[in-house]
């Protein structure tokens, strides 16, 4: 439950909370439970047809001929698209979206053809009958830290510096009384939202030449619109993108992928008919992005009292040769702990592999694994409590920029989390607690996530029928925007929340940013507050029917003056079976400091969801890429293991009260991603405490802790 002790500054956020902070049920819940909420692949269109992808079975080379004869001969097949026959796109600068524009193959699973048919079944059958002849080129899909072709990207996602250095890390390592140098790895990981990536596309000449409607499962209708319009050579206002509900995205629907472009192309090939494209689960492993595997070399230099002299992380990870995505794995190390000497670097291998992309907390999630386990190792070496070691290295100001923090309550999270979890009095010795045949241990790790505000988002607020109706092209990817945005707008207008409706998920509404970087509530909420203020300023407390005003998210001048982040502390209890090495997590607790919590029910569900995903990352998630073929072998949900109900036992999230007057008028920070960030390290640290075996390579499967026969 929400704590009452004040851990913020003495200032409070601009907006007085009435609806904000209330435990309201999600507004879209009933429609989802009843099945009346529609998703992209079941969007209400007349007489749809179905498109099925033909995927490359080589990792590099050319699809020199695509024989469509047998497929075209099937009853019900309407069109077969190949690199030779597909329409030419206006822009091919994004190689991931340059669908069927030439015969080159850059990764296994790339689209080399597509069949459109009257039924899903016929399309599937026909796609299997398309014969592709390849000219195979040698491919390279094996990441390692000792490759001689690693390169330095210009920047890392989204626009961070690639390398940073402060002081002299090498000197710190040479002179500090205690040093630690270890390599940690995280595997390739895939987002597995329940709803696959899907698009229904419809060209509507009656709306005007070139008018295209896309029902797309996306984290941002406006970003999809601008991207697709550019690829197809359309004006943005010719394209409408609709997406009221999303069955999970986690970043994988943050940027449009090939399926969206393909749907538009396929629909143009069958004039008058809407076309549905849904990726299969297997196709999602090559066409929808993933988290790069990371190799993290971490160095710590410390005094005997635990004070860090230096901290460094050198990261090696992969991208696709056809398109660069550089995960910002080293970035959290830049400002997490105080240390005068510091180094962070990123090196990439460009491989013949699918294009990596966003996965819940890109950067922070993998990048807090190595350092947070390293701190645990250091604590053990120093004989210090790992909670105290973290507190010992709490910085007064952002160590990277020297700016003050708008609010920083990591210490409060660690202390409160420790209390809630029952940490005090913990026996630090590893491998000494055998209970009912299980080795028991506990572990801690910190979490952080930046406060992002996107530059573009506009809200319209109007008064009609005695209610306030706001419109903004925002997205609810299961996170709760349908519910939370009305809470913010209601407080900004000073009316009960029942009197406010906020319409989202359609480019008919004003432009809004992507639901990414845990920035949605900050960005869209700030636009709504700006619109509400102007509305009241212009129309007063007693508006007339039809009064309406539009306003955009303002820049936040405070972001120049302050470092802004959310923080958290994860605590895990791990049980390792003494005979079989099975690793289970009986308890997980997270305490977070993320500004004002707009809706406790939905926030808790985000935090618990993030922690559950972190549990999967800790114990089982692992995309096994076969370097001989370049494909992820375990590309389905039977073999790519995500945590099931039985894996999740006692799971708790709470937060400290935090008043941050600088982040935005609501005083809120993002909560969608931070829940995953420290989970894996906390679990790995607890597994060490249970067994004495230090696992530095995720996932923490039983073979890594199994004693010999």
């Amino acid at each position, binding site marked *: 439950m929400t704590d009452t002790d004040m851990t913020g500054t003495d200032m409070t956020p601009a907006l007085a909370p009435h609806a904000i902070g209330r435990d309201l049920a999600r507004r879209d819940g009933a429609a989802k439970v009843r099945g009346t909420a529609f998703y992209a692949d079941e969007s209400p269109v007349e007489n749809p047809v179905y498109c099925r992808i033909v995927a490359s079975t080589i990792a590099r080379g050319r699809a020199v001929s695509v024989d469509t004869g047998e497929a075209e001969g099937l009853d019900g097949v309407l069109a077969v698209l190949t690199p030779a026959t597909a329409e030419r796109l206006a822009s091919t600068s994004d190689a991931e979206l340059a669908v069927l524009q030439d015969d080159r193959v850059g990764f296994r699973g790339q689209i080399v053809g597509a069949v459109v048919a009257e039924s899903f079944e016929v399309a599937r059958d026909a796609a299997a009958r398309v014969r592709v002849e390849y000219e195979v080129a040698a491919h390279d899909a094996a990441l390692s830290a000792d490759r001689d072709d690693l390169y330095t990207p210009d920047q890392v996602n989204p626009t961070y510096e690639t390398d940073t250095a402060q002081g002299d890390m090498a000197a710190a390592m040479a002179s500090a009384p205690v040093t630690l140098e270890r390599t940690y790895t995280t595997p390739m990981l895939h987002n597995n939202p329940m709803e696959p990536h899907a698009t229904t596309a419809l060209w509507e000449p009656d709306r005007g030449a070139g008018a295209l409607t896309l029902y797309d499962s996306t984290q941002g209708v406006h970003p999809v619109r601008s991207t697709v319009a550019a690829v197809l050579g359309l004006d943005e206002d010719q394209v409408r993108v609709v997406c009221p509900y999303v069955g999970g995205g986690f970043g994988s629907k943050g940027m449009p992928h090939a399926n969206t472009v393909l749907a538009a192309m396929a629909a143009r090939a069958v004039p008058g008919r809407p076309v549905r494209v849904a990726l299969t689960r297997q196709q999602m492993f090559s066409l929808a992005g993933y988290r790069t595997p990371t190799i993290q070399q971490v160095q710590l230099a410390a005094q005997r009292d635990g004070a860090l002299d230096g901290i460094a992380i050198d990261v090696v990870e992969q991208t696709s040769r056809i398109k660069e995505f550089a995960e910002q794995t080293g970035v959290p190390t830049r400002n997490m702990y105080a240390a005068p000497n510091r180094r962070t670097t990123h090196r990439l291998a460009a491989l013949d592999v699918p294009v990596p992309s966003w996965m819940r907390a890109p950067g922070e999630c993998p990048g807090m694994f190595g350092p947070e386990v390293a701190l645990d190792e250091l604590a053990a070496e120093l004989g210090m409590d790992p909670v105290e070691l973290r507190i010992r290295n709490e910085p007064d100001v952002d160590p990277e920029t020297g700016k003050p923090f708008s609010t920083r309550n990591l210490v409060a999270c660690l202390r409160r989390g420790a209390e809630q979890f029952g940490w005090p009095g913990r026996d630090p010795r590893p491998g000494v607690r055998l209970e009912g045949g299980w080795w028991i241990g506990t572990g801690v790790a910190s979490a952080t996530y930046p406060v992002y505000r996107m530059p573009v988002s506009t809200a319209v607020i109007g008064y009609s029928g005695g209610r306030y109706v706001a419109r903004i092209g925002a997205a609810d990817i299961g996170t709760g925007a349908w519910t939370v945005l009305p809470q913010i707008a209601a407080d900004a207008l000073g009316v009960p929340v029942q009197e406010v409706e906020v319409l989202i998920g359609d480019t008919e509404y004003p432009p809004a940013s992507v639901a990414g970087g845990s920035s949605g509530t900050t960005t869209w909420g700030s636009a709504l507050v700006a619109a509400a203020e102007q509305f009241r300023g212009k129309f007063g407390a007693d508006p007339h029917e039809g009064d309406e005003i539009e306003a955009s998210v303002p820049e936040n001048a405070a972001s120049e003056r302050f470092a802004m982040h959310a923080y958290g502390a994860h605590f895990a209890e791990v049980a390792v079976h003494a005979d079989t090495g*099975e690793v289970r997590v009986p308890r997980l607790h997270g305490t977070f400091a993320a500004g004002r919590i707009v809706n406790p029910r939905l926030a808790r569900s985000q935090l618990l969801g993030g922690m559950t995903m972190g549990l999967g990352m800790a114990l089982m998630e692992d995309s096994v890429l*076969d370097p*001989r073929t370049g494909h992820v072998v375990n590309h389905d949900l039977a*073999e790519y*293991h995500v945590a099931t109900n039985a894996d999740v036992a006692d799971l708790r999230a709470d937060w400290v009260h935090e008043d941050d007057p600088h982040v935005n008028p609501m005083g809120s920070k993002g909560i969608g991603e931070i829940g995953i960030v420290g989970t894996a390290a906390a679990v790995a640290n607890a597994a060490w405490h249970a067994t004495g075996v230090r696992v530095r390579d995720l996932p923490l499967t039983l073979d890594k802790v199994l*004693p010999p*026969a």
Partner: protein
Amino acid sequence: MRPFAYQAPDDTGAAVRSVAERPDAVFLGGGTNLVDHLRLGVVSPGLLVDVTALTSTEITEVGGGLRVGAGVPNSELAADARVRSRYPVLAQALLSGASGQLRNMATTGGNPLQRTRCMYFQDVSTPCNKREPGSGCSAIGGSTRNHAVLGTSEHCIATHPSDMAVAMAALDAQVLVLGPDGERTIPFTELHRLPGDTPERDTVLEHGELITAIDLPELPMARRSRYRKVRDRASYAFALVSVAAALDVDGGVVREARIAFGGVAHAPWRARRAEEALRGATVSDESFAAAAAAELTDARPQPGVDGGNEFKIALLTRTLVATLRDLAREEA
């Protein structure tokens, strides 16, 4: 997935004739494995002959044991009070498999005939000797973590995925089969084959042979039996290794043991060498480990891009020791 014809004949004889007549016909049980394979293009039969309504859905007493109709769903077999008290190893094995929804659909006849979960087998874009004889085995040198360590060949290293089958192998169940030439009974331990140079054949069944029932013989020692499944997540995952065991102990000495392994071979692996080693042995972790060692002398682990499966040797040994230790304690 190709279009196919569907038939639901009136009796088992007609079903057998329908399938026997057409090389591209197959029986359809609960469909939880077959329908996946249709979708993936792993198999493309021209005719599905639905047998769920034809074979018995009853569990009946037969000569001190139980006869389980091929149509009995996995969930009902697991819930049957007689099975739970007389063959707990079987109930536990069933409940450790798949999910509640799948167990409601899966049948006693279909379960032992489910095919390997080898990911290359299920991916028609990769070579696989089992799916396409002579095309090569993609698993060897690839992802092998889930693959076999016993009875493998250079042509195939797949495992059999069924949990139920491991218990049935330990229990010496008998498989009742109706074929075009009449009925026959196959010991459960002889139903599944090792891959050899014909990995495309999972079992000794001929085309058109229908499983009509499975007999569980009277076996008093099975009242104290267990199934221990070890897997990467707490539910809804196939076994890395599993052990089905029954133990008859008298005064600290093993009189008889029944042991079968899952997750380590192309067939549920009846561990006769381990059973032999245990007969007359004193109850101790050392003799249990020696029994495991006796069974695993010929084990051949695989290296792999995912770290391989060498860990299965230690894991299986430790799992067997723990399972027998628990059973012996139960006896005492």
